C-alpha cells in the first residue's frame, strides 16, 4: 500500500508580502495611539512585527507557544506596572493593541489574517471616539482602505504571484468606493440606538480647568486648538478682538491659586430673563462648544438669556447637568451692560476673604493704592482700581507667557519681577483689591477670537484663554469688569505674545504676502473643520427624522425605519451586483465572432437553427451556398479550434482573421 501522499498545505504560510501588508495595516491603525502607549511598547510591537516577518520570509516556523506565552505575559505585566490597564474603552486600547500585535506570532491561515484585518478596523474606529475631526476621519478611512488592500493581497497572493502594490490599492479603493453608498444610506437612515452604556468614557479634559493656576493657563495659551465657534444670528460681524467670553467665576484663593468654592454651593439659580424684555442692547449668539468634558458653558459677557436645560448661578456662570462630551450648540443672548444685583452678606464675605498668609509688602501696596485713591478724590472701589492700574503702568510691567519660575509667594514674586501674563495680573490685582476692602472675584474664560471670512463665524482658540477680575461697585450695586492685563499692557502686546515664536518681518513685503495667504489658508481650514463638525455632530436622531419626513417616510416607527434603511442598503448591493455583472463579458469571444458570421450567412439566406451544431450547419450551408463553401469551411474549422483548443488565444486570433477575411472577401466580390 502506498502511503497517503502529502500535498503542500495551503495553511503552510501566509507569504511574506501578504504579511507585510497586514503589518502595514496594523501599523496604520496603531499609529494614532502611539503617544498614549507606554514608551517601551512601540519598539516591542515593531520588533514583534519584524521578527515575525523575517520568520515568514525565511520560511522558518513562527515562535513556539512557550515563547508566545512568555511575551504575552510580559506585556500584560508591563502594562499593569505602567498603569496602562483600566476599565473602559480608552483604557483598554493599549491592551487591545498589545494582543493584536502578539497575535501576529501565531498567525497561520486565512482566518487569522482576516481577524487581524477586522481588529485593525476596530482600532481605526476607536481613534474616532473622542475626536471626530476631518483629518482623523480621513485617516481612519485611509486605514480601512489599507486593511482592505491587505485582505485582498492575501487572497490574490496565495493563489497566484503576489500582485503589485498599485493594483491591490486600486482594487481596495474601488471596493471601498462601491461600499460607500451602502455606508452612506446606513449612516443617513439607520436609526441609532440611544442607550447609555455603562462603559467608562475616560476623562481626558481640555481647555480651562476650574482653577486659576498661572502655570496651567500658560500651557493652554500656547495651544491653537479651537475652543468654540460663534455665529451671530443677526449676521453682523463683531469686533472679535474686544469680546470677553465668560466662563467661570473664582472666589476662593490661597494666595496663588484661585478656585471655585470648595464649600457646598450655596448659590441659587438666577431666574431667567423673560424673552419679551428688550430694554437694552443685546447680542444673540449661537455657540458650538467643542467637548471639554466639563459642566460649564461659555458665553459673551454677560449672558442674560440661556437655554432651558442650562442653569445659571450667581456670578452668571452657566452650568449643564451633563459634562460636554460632544460638540454642543446652544443659543445665548448676552447684554454688555451689567444689571444691578443685590449683594448678600455671605457673598460679600466670600469675595473679601483673604488668604491666611499674605506678604507684608503686598499689604503695604494695597494701603498705598487706597491712599492714592483718596488723594485723587475717589476713595470708592472704582477709584482704588484706577489707582492700582495706574500704579502698574508707572512701574513698567510687561506681558510675557514665559515669566520664569516664581519661588515662594506668587504675588510678591510677580510684583518684584514686573513681568507675567493674565493669570499673574488678575490674581495679583484681585488680591490687592481685596486687601483694599473691595469685593473682588476672578473670572476665567476667553478673550477675543478670529473672524472667519469664508464661514462667517468667530473662532475662539485655546490660545485666547484669559483671566480678568470683577469688582463690586457699592454705589451702582453692580459688578464691574476690570481687565488689569489689557489695561496695563494693551491687548496688542498680549496678542502678539500669544502668537509666540512667529517671526514678524514687517519689512519684507513678500513674506507679508505669504503670511496673508497662510492666514487665508488657515481660515479656509478652520471653515472646513467647522462645516465638517456641523454636519458630523449635528446629524442626530432629529436630523434623521427630518430626512425621513422629506423622503415621505416620516410615519415609520423605529423598527420600520431600521428595516427601510437595511432594505435600501441591500438594494444598493443588488444594484452593484447588476452593474458588476454587466462588466463581465457574458459570452465566449469565439462564440461572439462565430455568431457575427452566422448573422451574415442568415442575411445570405441560410440561417442557423438554434440547436444546430457548427459542423452540421457547415454541411448544410455549404450545400445551400456552394459559392461560399471555402469560407464556411475556414470559419467553422477556426471556430471549432478556438472552442476546443488547449490554448484558445492563438485559435481565437485565427478565427477572427477567418471571419474578417470572409467579410472583406465578400465585400470585394
Amino acid at each position, binding site marked *: 500500500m502506498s502511503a497517503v501522499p502529502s500535498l503542500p498545505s495551503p495553511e503552510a504560510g501566509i507569504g511574506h508580502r501578504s504579511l507585510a501588508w497586514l503589518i502595514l495595516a496594523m501599523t496604520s491603525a496603531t499609529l494614532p495611539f502611539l503617544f498614549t502607549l507606554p514608551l517601551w511598547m512601540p519598539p516591542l510591537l515593531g520588533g514583534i512585527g519584524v521578527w515575525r516577518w523575517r520568520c515568514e520570509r525565511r520560511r522558518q516556523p513562527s515562535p513556539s507557544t512557550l515563547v508566545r506565552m512568555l511575551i504575552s505575559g510580559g506585556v500584560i505585566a508591563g502594562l499593569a506596572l505602567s498603569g496602562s490597564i483600566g476599565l473602559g474603552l480608552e483604557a483598554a486600547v493599549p491592551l487591545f493593541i498589545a494582543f493584536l500585535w502578539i497575535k501576529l506570532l501565531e498567525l497561520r491561515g486565512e482566518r487569522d489574517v482576516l481577524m487581524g484585518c477586522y481588529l485593525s478596523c476596530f482600532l481605526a474606529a476607536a481613534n474616532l471616539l473622542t475626536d471626530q475631526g476631518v483629518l*482623523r476621519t480621513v485617516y481612519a478611512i485611509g486605514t480601512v482602505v489599507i486593511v482592505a488592500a491587505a485582505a485582498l493581497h492575501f487572497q490574490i497572493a496565495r493563489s497566484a504571484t503576489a500582485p503589485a502594490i498599485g493594483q491591490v490599492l486600486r482594487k481596495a479603493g474601488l471596493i471601498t468606493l462601491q461600499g460607500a453608498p451602502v455606508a452612506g444610506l*446606513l449612516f443617513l437612515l439607520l436609526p441609532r440606538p440611544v442607550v447609555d452604556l455603562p462603559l467608562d468614557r475616560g476623562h481626558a479634559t481640555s481647555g480651562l480647568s476650574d482653577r486659576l493656576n498661572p502655570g496651567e493657563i500658560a500651557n493652554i495659551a500656547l495651544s491653537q486648538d479651537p475652543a468654540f465657534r460663534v455665529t451671530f444670528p443677526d449676521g453682523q460681524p463683531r469686533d472679535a478682538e474686544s469680546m470677553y467670553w465668560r466662563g467661570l467665576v473664582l472666589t476662593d484663593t490661597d494666595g496663588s491659586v484661585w478656585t471655585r468654592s470648595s464649600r457646598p454651593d450655596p448659590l441659587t439659580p438666577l431666574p431667567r430673563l423673560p424673552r419679551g424684555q428688550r430694554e437694552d442692547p443685546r447680542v444673540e449668539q449661537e455657540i458650538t462648544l467643542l467637548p471639554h468634558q466639563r459642566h460649564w458653558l461659555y458665553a459673551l459677557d454677560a449672558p442674560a438669556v440661556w437655554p432651558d436645560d442650562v442653569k445659571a448661578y450667581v456670578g452668571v456662570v452657566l452650568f449643564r447637568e451633563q459634562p460636554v*462630551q460632544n460638540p454642543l450648540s446652544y443659543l445665548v443672548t448676552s447684554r454688555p451692560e451689567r444689571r444691578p444685583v443685590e449683594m448678600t452678606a455671605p457673598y460679600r464675605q466670600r469675595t473679601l476673604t483673604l488668604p491666611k498668609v499674605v506678604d507684608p509688602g503686598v499689604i503695604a501696596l494695597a494701603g498705598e493704592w487706597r491712599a492714592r485713591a483718596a488723594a485723587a478724590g475717589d476713595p470708592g472701589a472704582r477709584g482704588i482700581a484706577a489707582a492700582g492700574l495706574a500704579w502698574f503702568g508707572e512701574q513698567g510691567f510687561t506681558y510675557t507667557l514665559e515669566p520664569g519660575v516664581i519661588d515662594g509667594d506668587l504675588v510678591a514674586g510677580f510684583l518684584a519681577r514686573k513681568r507675567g501674563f493674565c493669570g499673574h495680573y488678575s490674581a495679583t490685582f484681585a488680591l490687592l483689591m481685596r486687601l483694599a476692602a473691595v469685593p473682588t472675584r476672578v473670572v476665567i474664560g476667553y478673550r477675543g477670537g478670529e473672524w472667519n471670512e469664508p464661514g462667517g463665524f468667530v473662532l475662539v482658540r485655546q490660545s485666547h484663554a484669559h483671566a480678568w477680575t470683577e469688582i463690586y461697585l457699592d454705589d451702582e450695586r453692580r459688578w464691574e469688569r476690570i481687565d488689569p492685563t489689557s489695561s496695563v499692557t494693551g491687548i496688542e502686546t498680549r496678542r502678539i505674545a500669544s502668537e509666540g515664536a512667529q517671526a514678524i518681518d514687517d519689512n519684507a513685503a513678500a513674506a507679508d504676502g505669504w503670511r496673508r495667504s497662510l492666514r487665508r489658508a488657515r481660515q479656509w481650514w478652520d471653515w472646513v473643520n467647522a462645516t465638517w463638525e456641523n454636519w458630523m455632530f449635528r446629524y442626530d436622531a432629529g436630523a434623521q427624522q427630518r430626512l425621513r419626513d422629506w423622503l415621505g417616510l416620516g410615519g415609520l416607527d423605529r423598527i420600520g425605519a431600521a428595516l427601510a434603511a437595511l432594505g435600501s442598503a441591500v438594494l444598493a448591493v443588488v444594484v*452593484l*451586483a447588476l452593474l*458588476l455583472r454587466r462588466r*463581465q*463579458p457574458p459570452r465566449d469571444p469565439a462564440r461572439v465572432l462565430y455568431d457575427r458570421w452566422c448573422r451574415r450567412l442568415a442575411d445570405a439566406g441560410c440561417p442557423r437553427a438554434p440547436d444546430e451544431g457548427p459542423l452540421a450547419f457547415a454541411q448544410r450551408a455549404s450545400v445551400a451556398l456552394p459559392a461560399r463553401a471555402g469560407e464556411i469551411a475556414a470559419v467553422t474549422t477556426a471556430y471549432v479550434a478556438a472552442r476546443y483548443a488547449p490554448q484558445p488565444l492563438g485559435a481565437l486570433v485565427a478565427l477572427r482573421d477567418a471571419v474578417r477575411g470572409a467579410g472583406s472577401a465578400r465585400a470585394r466580390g
Partner: protein
Amino acid sequence: MPDRQITSRVRLRPSWNSIRLGVVLAAMAMAAINYQSNAAWLLTFLVAGIAGASVPHARRNLLGIEVAATPADAFAGEPIALPVVLRNRGLVSVVAVAPTADVMLAAPTPATTVPASGEAQVTLLLAPRRRGRCRVAGLRATSSFPFGLVDALVRAPETDLIVYPSPIGVTLARDRAPVPVDATGDGQRSGDDFAGHRRHLSGESQRHVDWKAVARGRPMLVKSYTGGGGECRLRWDDAVGDDEGRLSQLARWVLDAESYGWHYGLELPGTSIDPDGGPAHRQRCLRALALQVVT
C-alpha cells in the same frame, strides 16, 4: 460538447468570517453608541458597506468558471486522485479558486488562479471509498475572494466513480502459468521486465504512482512492464473467503495477471469475461468486480 453558452450558476453562502466581522462591527457600534461619535458610526458603516460590496465581487469572480472532473477509477481503501479541471470562460482571470468535495482527505487543495479564457487542472485527493459505484459528493469550485466573508461556489456536474475491490489476497502464482498463447514461446514470459514510466491510465492501480511527482503538479506516472504471454481463467470458485474477500482476491489476481503480461479471463457468478489482456481489458475486469452484486 453542446454548443451552448454555459453561464455558471454561482451560489453564495456566508462563511464563519462574516460572523467574526459581525461581532467586530457590533463592538464598533457599541463604542460609537457609548461615545456618541458620528465619525465612528460612519467608519462602522463603511466597513459594513465594504463587506456588502464584497458580495457581488465574490459572485463576479466565479462567473464564467466551470468545474469538471474526469471520472477516475480507484481501489477501495486507497486515496482517490480525482483530476478536476477548472475552466474559465470569462475574459477576466478568476482569483483564489479551489475545487473541493465533501469526501476530501485532510489536506485541502491550495487555491489557484485561472487565467482568462484558460483552465487549470487540480488533482483532488478523495478519501477512500467502499467498492462499487459511488458519487463524488459536493464537488464544487469555491472561492472566498475578496474578503473571505462569503464563500462563492460553482457546482460540478454529478460525477460517478467506480471503486474496485481492494486487491488483497494471495499473489497469483507464476507457476500457474497456463498454456502459452504466444506460439513462438521465446521465453519472455515474466512480466517483471521494467520498461520505464508511462502515463497512468484511468482505473489502473495507483500503487506505483509517483505521488511526489503528482504533488508537484506533474502527471501521474506509473512503472510499466513488458511480459510474456500466457492465459488463465480467474474463477470465483478458486478464490477463498467471504464474498468481498473473494472479490478482493480476484482483483489481486487480475492485477498480477496483467503485470505478468498474461491473457486472463474472469468467471463470476452470472458474469463471464473471455481471456484477453491490456489496460482496457483489465479495467473491464476490475469494473466487473467492482459492480458485482453479491447476495
